[in-house]
């Protein structure tokens, strides 16, 4: 009998293609996994980080491939906004992985986005908060660009959403 835990372990292998150190589980985009009792059908529920993110289709295909590779025959991967993603859904492990990758992790916040949250980001290289927001847009939809006045380097942040 397949279990949710077993499937989640397999899915650890699927990474965000733009941030290859971060698994989809740690990113928080896998919102549910169910195994139906009668026919062992596996349903994986996913939700996009940003609605226009071109990597989502790719991630969905990777999830399907991992299920197939592990011998699951009857499965469905569904993408919806039913449990919408926000940046608080990134796990602690995921935040550490982001920082080690050189991306400032999004701060835990009350989901009311104001300028203060974006303007005082800790530099992932030297931890200083003497940083400036340069632009709320970056090389991918989920990143903003900042400058650290302490270590004098540009860095990117995974944007709070």
């Amino acid at each position: 009998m397949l279990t949710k835990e077993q499937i989640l372990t397999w899915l650890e292998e699927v990474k965000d293609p733009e941030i290859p150190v971060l698994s989809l589980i740690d990113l928080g985009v896998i919102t549910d996994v169910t195994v139906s009792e009668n026919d062992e059908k596996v349903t994986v529920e996913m939700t996009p980080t940003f609605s226009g993110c071109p990597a989502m289709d790719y991630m969905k295909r990777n999830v399907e491939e991992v299920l197939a590779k592990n011998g699951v025959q009857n499965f469905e991967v569904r993408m919806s906004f039913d449990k919408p993603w926000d940046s608080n859904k990134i796990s602690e492990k995921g935040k550490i992985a982001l920082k080690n990758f050189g991306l400032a992790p999004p701060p835990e916040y009350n989901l009311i986005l104001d300028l203060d949250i974006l303007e005082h980001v800790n530099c992932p290289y030297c931890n200083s908060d003497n940083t400036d927001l340069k632009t709320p847009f970056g090389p991918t939809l989920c990143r903003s660009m900042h400058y650290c006045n302490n270590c004098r380097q540009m860095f990117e942040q995974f944007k709070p959403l």
Partner: protein
Amino acid sequence: MNTEALKDLLYKIADDQLILGHRNSEWTGFGPILEEDIAFSSMAQDKLGHSLAFYSLLHELGESDPDTIAFTRNANQFHNSQLVELPIGEYDFSLIRHFLFDNAEILRFDMLTRSSYTPITTVATKLKGEVKYHVLHANTMIKQLGSSTEEAIGRLQNSLNEALPYALGIFEPSKYEAELIADGIYEGEEKLKAAWLENIKKVLSQTQLELPDLTTITPKNGGRYGEHTEHLQPLLDEMAEVFKIDPTAEW
């Protein structure tokens, strides 16, 4: 629930996003500075994602699939406001349009988070967070450039005067306005316009730009009913060029 009214609402929102998304993408590779090139390109990508979300809601209501809706209609079947179809012009015009449009869009999404039609509230709740970044970008740039050099202020003022009649066309009431309000689906264009005006005034008051007297301006309406400027059809032809040659093409 009046399905026709609901579809009309979804079409105008989705079409605004698709067309402005396409216009924003025309800045890719041409932005005046790298950060603005990236900003307009990112917003283009977001807006296409937003239009997909709303076209998907239409698909659930029995309309064609999102690609067919996006790529096979002619200009007179589009419900976008004329503001979004205008050419990108120079950077000052695109910035002013982005400021005027996104300040309305975020309030529209906020209203829709309270809609009686649950599928809309789900989508609006998600997208509101993304549009916040668009508004943050627009307001920051307007505040900075709108109080900088004489040339910047003069250019922005001209673009504001030019764009404003079209921006008022965003709020052209639908023929289903009363039903949408009565059913609790949408709070209506009048209310949206009032809230929008208050917000853009707040930003403009921190600059040397002046909001023209709105009572002297005739809104450029018609877009919501399929009447468009000569600029929309060429945009659609370009956007759908590959799809029309080969609808199954992948890239």
